[in-house]
């Protein structure tokens, strides 16, 4: 029985790889947040053509509609920090022309268990040759994609959704989340920010030394929170350290902000779309990066 089981396993593996070779094309097969982060990193590292512009950040900038930013690849990783995205860039075979770095939560520690996924040369080589080993090609993820597509097909033909600037969670829940964030933001964690700034500074220098331009951007959050002590301290720390540096630019918050968030910090769909439009216009403005 053991021999037959092993033969069956090998047979399934070969057939599955052939199926994946034949049915190429990127599908949205991520099943959960951590896996989607790995998929993003794998797609960046094993891409056939290099990406010229890369964005790194957290779940805040992950909300942006990157499909409407031509040439941009998002390594904004929910649950992680910009530093993790920068590590992925550094572990790749090339450096992009421009790296956009979200500044809201730049000071978190690197998640070594995540970035460690891509340390092994043997694993990386096997993943390039055998698509069945990629996270994006897990059978359950593909099954989930086809099931989801089947149900969404029933909604084809309906009018395109009109986005409204609203949030769909109970008001009491939203108020409690906002209050919690406001309390947390009253306290300045200067040790974490300052230590994170040192690390970020070293990473920025590394990127610049490899020919990259760097552009910092801040994601809008609820107006009630953005001028509290902690966000202000973070903003000022970044400005103080990097303003005036060569090959570094800033995309500052838009002057008029009518954004609503889902929980105080994550933009709703309407806000994400509006901010993406603003971001795109800023990126195309000459002189953003010195």
């Amino acid at each position, binding site marked *: *029985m053991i021999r037959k*089981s092993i033969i069956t396993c090998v047979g399934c593996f070969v057939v599955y790889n052939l199926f994946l070779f034949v049915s190429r094309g990127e599908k949205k097969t991520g099943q*959960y*947040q951590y896996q989607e982060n790995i998929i993003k990193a794998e797609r960046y590292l094993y891409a056939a053509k290099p990406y010229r512009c890369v964005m790194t950040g957290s779940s805040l900038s992950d909300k942006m509609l990157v499909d409407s930013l031509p040439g941009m690849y998002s390594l904004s990783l929910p649950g992680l920090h910009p530093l993790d995205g920068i590590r992925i860039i550094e572990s790749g075979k090339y450096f992009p022309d421009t790296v956009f770095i979200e500044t809201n939560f730049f000071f978190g520690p690197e998640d070594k268990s995540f970035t460690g996924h891509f340390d092994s040369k043997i694993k990386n080589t096997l993943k390039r040759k055998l698509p*069945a080993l990629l996270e994006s090609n897990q059978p359950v993820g593909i099954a989930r994609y086809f099931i989801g597509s089947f*149900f969404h097909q029933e909604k084809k033909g309906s009018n395109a959704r009109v986005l409204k600037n609203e949030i769909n969670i109970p008001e009491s829940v939203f108020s409690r989340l906002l209050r919690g964030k406001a309390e947390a933001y009253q306290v300045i964690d200067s040790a974490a920010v300052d230590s994170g700034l040192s690390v970020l500074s070293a990473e920025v220098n590394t990127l610049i030394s490899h020919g990259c331009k760097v552009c910092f951007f801040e994601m809008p959050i609820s107006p009630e929170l953005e001028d509290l002590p902690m966000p202000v301290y973070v903003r000022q720390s970044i400005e103080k350290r990097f303003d005036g540096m060569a090959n570094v630019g800033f995309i500052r918050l838009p002057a008029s902000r009518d954004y609503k968030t889902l929980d105080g910090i994550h933009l709703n769909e309407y806000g994400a779309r509006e901010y993406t439009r603003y971001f795109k216009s800023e990126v195309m403005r000459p002189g953003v990066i010195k």
Partner: protein
Amino acid sequence: MLFNSLEFIILLVITFFFYYLPLLSRVQVPVLILSSLCFYAYGQPILLLLLLFSAAINIFTSYKVVTGSPNRRKFYVTMGVVVNLSILACFKYSPLFAKTLLDTSQGLGHFLLMMPLPIGISFYTFEGISLLVDVYSNKHRDSFAIKGPVKKHIINTLFFISFFPHLIAGPILKAYQFYPQIGRKYLKDVDWEYVAKKLIMGYFLKMVVADSLSNLTFWMASPYFEVQSSLTLLTMLFGYSCQIFADFAGYSLIALGLAAMFGYSLMDNFNFPYISTSFSEFWRRWHISLSTFLKEYLYIPLGGNRKGNVRTYINLLLTMVLGGLWHGAAWSYAVWGAFHGGALAIERFAQNFTGSKEPGRLRTFFKGLMVFCFVSLAWLLFKLPFEHVVQYLRAIGTNIHVKNESTLIICLLLYSIPVVLYHLNYVLSTQWKVHDRFRTYRYLAYGFLLFMIIVNSGPSGAFIYFQF
């Protein structure tokens, strides 16, 4: 050290090689002891001292019970049990004591809160207690007795306590079942088909089902659950039931397979618990080593069902509350135990009126559904602090109009299917005798499971029961 880590695979291969080397055949047990101590020390080297101390206490007191003065037997067994429970109380329950009664921001309260929780402590202290009670009661003298030189007793007991397949998450071994097995083992006697089946199923349940579900049920935590729809919350609850089974049953199956590689047979810890049609049946099928331990060493000594109905209900409740607290140093576990104790007591009370009439298939099905729903709801107490459990249940009632998370729901259901099929396969083969003829093609299933382990594993996570 996780069973699916590279470090463990290396340790296993080295141990296996030296264990069956003919030159080292006389020291097979010491080889396993050394390997087990390395396994335990890998994560928490300093706490190895505690394991050795616990083993030393059990070695000394059990030996004295057997060889010491008959008048002092009770003293030694009492001393051994008290020391075992003290170790458990000190390292496991002092944070609960501190949080409940002291100021944890400073002084003694803070010190107690910071006590490290040695991995596997609940398991090996219970095994020590079972050894002491068994040698004292002498009930199993036909199969198990401590005799011979003290050196042999030291080695056997250290082996019994530290054997790595079961060391950190069970099954909880009984001395009278394990000691008679200790002896020389031969490679030719290993049942490789049994080993392969256990390991493949165990790793599949753990790496594919449990590790993936753990990333999906993450959203059950506060405050995330507050913004999920009722359907999403219910599906996550169902998924968590499947996750906790897959995690623990998967670990237990791996432990059985690993032990069998070295010639040792451990007891099955799960017997398809989610097909249970009564709470008493559930506890005969779930975490069998713990429930039999509690029955043998707590429920029966308390009087069991021999002292009238009211006393029986109290004994059931007390046993389950203590069993709940065994799982963790938090009041939510005690409440979980009380829920199950209460259910057992009510069921016993109801049985006194309905008698032993065999129910029909439909009634059996609904009873099974009711048991499963109750057990699943109770698992919330494992996942969330008590106040969040109440909020979670409230959110199920109020979030009917919130948009469903279809990706999350579909993935939860897909990963829960193997657990459903695992139980259905058992029902079809044992109770309905449907597919005996398909046994010839079992290798297809195992081959597919192996394939899924390779291509569809979730991110490595510690076993849920490691924390107990």
